[in-house]
């Protein structure tokens, strides 16, 4: 009699591979379609300390203007421009004219593209407002529509 009742065997739970493969394949397609590839790094020269800001806006991948103690560098070409040339009361204007031409050419080449006419500005926190304004003014006169100030994330002040 006891032989008629077979003990109930618990079959081990097997993962349903077909369902898992379907879900993961859809997720992979989703991630591939949604991924945005681009250079998002900002080039910070050594010994340059950007200012801190409480802003929470994310950085944009756009061409960069770097203000160094004695010159201005751009990331969209290998040119450097003498910084005193940007100040109104001293320096030769040739470098400013060259800078404006280069920025104007960049803006013209990027017309119709995403983030056209937008530039990142990188400078040390001790740079004077006069130098900052002079470079911004030259870039705006050359056609740059918006200048983004790159800063380190600081504490939120209430």
């Amino acid at each position, binding site marked *: 009699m006891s032989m008629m009742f077979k003990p109930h065997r618990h079959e081990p739970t097997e993962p349903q591979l*077909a*369902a898992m*493969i*379907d879900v993961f394949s859809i997720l992979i397609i*989703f991630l591939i379609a949604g991924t945005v590839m681009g250079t998002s790094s900002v080039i910070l020269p050594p010994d340059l300390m950007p200012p801190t800001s*409480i802003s929470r806006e994310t950085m944009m991948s756009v061409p960069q203007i770097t203000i160094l103690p004695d010159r201005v560098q751009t990331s969209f070409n290998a040119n450097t421009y003498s910084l005193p040339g940007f100040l109104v009361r001293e320096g030769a204007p040739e470098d400013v004219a060259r800078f404006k031409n280069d920025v104007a050419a960049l803006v013209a080449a990027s017309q119709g593209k995403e983030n056209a006419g937008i530039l990142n500005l990188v400078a040390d*926190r*001790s740079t004077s407002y*006069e130098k900052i*304004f002079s470079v911004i003014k030259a870039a705006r006169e050359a056609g740059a529509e918006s200048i983004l100030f790159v800063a380190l994330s600081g504490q939120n002040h209430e």
Partner: protein
Amino acid sequence: MIEEFLQKKPHRHVKEIPLAPVLDLLVVVIFFLVLSTSFIDLTKQTLPPSAVSTITDPVAPPPVSPKLLGVRKGAGYRLFLRWSGESPGQDEKIVAAGEPAVTVRALETAAFELMKSFKERYASQSSVQIGLGPDLTYQEMISIMDGARAHVGEIVMIAPAEALALDAATDASPAAKTQ
């Protein structure tokens, strides 16, 4: 006979559709569609014929054009906000210089409070012009902008010379008068 009953008859295997992966697929697709759907509301604007013109307010009020300016004053800073419009006015704060981290925070707070009281009067203003003295630093500029951006979304930078000129024209402190 008994053996025929005991013998299991071979069942014809009917292929069944596996529902679990189909349901998973549909759930993911539905999530995708829900997240990517954007509803577009079509609108139109009708321009009146050029022969018909209605002038309701021939004299528009002058623009407010707020300007937030900051200059060094002795050991500290003078931060002042000027505005035009029908009721022009000015508000200012003096910030004492100290430790750099404390000073920039004080500048940010002063800019925040100036813009806050301005926005209480002119809630519709969404932009401000900021001008600083030529010797203020980039960090000080960013801190003042941080304070102002809490209330306005658009900032336009103006020349240091204008900030100095407005400071000279508006500073009513005794030290300025003796200069």
